[in-house]
């Protein structure tokens, strides 16, 4: 309503019904400036009301319609219901969550560790796989093939990894399904291994490939985290086949599916061709805990 309509309002209510047709509150934003600040005529009332200005039915309808229109933008959320937009919008949403997660990650912040009494018994440590529990790795021939932005690429034997300082830690393993267990994992720090192979730690990613054709990637910051392990032991014994022998990733700052088992290849790279098996199905890429 334009300010000019004020005069028309006054003419309509000339019977004097508007007891307080005094435009006091000029900053009322939804009405045409004739609103009266709610100062009580009756001091007893908890909620002072005053019959202030009047408005014609017609103008009231107009105003109501205008106010309704102002709420209509909420329908924009309906884009999520439109099939052609949905996938893109959800992907963008997930990417944003990943971006925030990466900002939240602190290299110096350790995942909680636990006393031995808190450990989940080994028999109760679930085994998940995407293909088979045991891809039939032949331990005598097994090597970790290293490539990418490293000074010393090539095939590394388990003994070389076991020669690095060994760390054993009791950490929580969280599955994306919602369950978690506390396990005891032992191995070499991935950062020590990257040092040994002369990796370019300014590169963005580590990618791994596995004996069961599973594949994963890791941001360099997490790879360098002190609790990220090239793990070859569980509960102070060598990894069993179902749990990823001879070598797996143990990353207490990441969700379970990023902690790949039965590793066969490791690469340092700036380019990700594929992010990871589950990520390529639509799961989060960063998924830091």
């Amino acid at each position, binding site marked *: 309503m334009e300010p000019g309509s004020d005069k028309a309002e006054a003419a309509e209510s000339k019977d004097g019904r508007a007891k307080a047709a005094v435009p006091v509150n000029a900053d009322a934003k939804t009405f045409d400036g004739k*609103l009266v600040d709610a100062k009580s005529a009756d001091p007893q009332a908890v909620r002072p009301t005053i019959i202030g200005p009047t408005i014609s039915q017609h103008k009231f309808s107009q105003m109501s319609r205008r106010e309704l229109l102002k709420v209509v933008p909420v329908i924009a*959320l309906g884009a999520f219901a439109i099939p052609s937009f949905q996938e893109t919008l959800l992907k963008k949403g997930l990417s944003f969550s990943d971006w925030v*997660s990466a900002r939240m990650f602190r290299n110096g912040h350790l995942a909680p560790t636990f006393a031995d009494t808190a450990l989940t018994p080994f028999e109760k440590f679930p085994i998940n796989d995407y293909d088979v529990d045991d891809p039939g790795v032949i331990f005598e021939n097994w090597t970790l093939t290293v490539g990418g932005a490293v000074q010393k690429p090539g095939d590394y034997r388990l003994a070389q990894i076991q020669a690095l300082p060994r760390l054993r830690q009791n950490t*929580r393993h969280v*599955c994306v399904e919602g369950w978690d267990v506390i396990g005891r994992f032992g191995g070499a720090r991935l950062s020590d291994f990257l040092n040994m192979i002369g990796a370019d730690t300014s590169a963005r990613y580590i990618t791994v490939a596995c004996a069961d054709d599973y594949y994963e990637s890791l941001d360099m910051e997490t790879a360098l985290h002190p609790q990220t392990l090239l793990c070859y032991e569980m509960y102070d014994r060598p990894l069993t086949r179902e749990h990823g022998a001879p070598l797996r990733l143990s990353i207490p700052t990441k969700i379970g599916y990023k902690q790949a088992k039965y590793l066969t290849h490791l690469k340092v790279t700036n380019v990700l061709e594929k992010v990871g098996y589950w990520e390529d199905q639509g799961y989060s890429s960063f998924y830091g805990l």
Partner: protein
Amino acid sequence: MSGTVIEIVRPKGEETETVGRAVYEHPLPVRLCHWLNAISLFVMVGSGLQIFRAFPSFGAKIPQKDLLNWPKSFAIGGWLGGALQWHLTFMWIYLATGVIYLGYQIFSGNYRQVLFTHKDLSGVRPMVKHYFFAGPKPPQHEAYNALQKHAYTSAIGLGVLSVLTGLAVWKPVQFSWLAWLMGGFHWARLWHFLVMWAILAFVFGHLVMVILHGWNNFMSMLTGWKKDPEY
């Protein structure tokens, strides 16, 4: 500004006659946030329940004892991966809406009409008697009675809790202190689930009240104005 009352008139011969009154109850930011939140909450609960279906238990994985078998038809996302996409996308809309709402209410002073304070304690019993035990209807002087204030104030508290518990579940390492405050990761997950049910209880009660209080009241959350108010 909330609380403004106007009189609706129509021409009658050379004069006007009063057709009714209307009070301005809900400023635009409140209305926008209300509807944004209604949609967001629907998606968060639907996708949250689908996520829950992946491990509908609060105990050990082996052996797994499921708490309840939530039907897939009442869940959003189709599968765990899809549900997480919805949940991790809409949580930002839900969060932003909450922040904008709280910011607006506080900075505009509009919170005063809805915040439950100690002054409202005496109004609780008469309202409970009226709502649940066929007691007399207490006179209404304000936009919200004591029980309404309690409901809407609690709802905000529950919203805040849903975010905090969700954060503890999503980031139990980076926010390990928060998870610790809640009793640990398992408890955080349980609290997150329980807070959802508390919010659903609020929504149920809210919808019943909306239906019982008629069209004019409902319209006030769309246009801001409530025709023929009782006060």
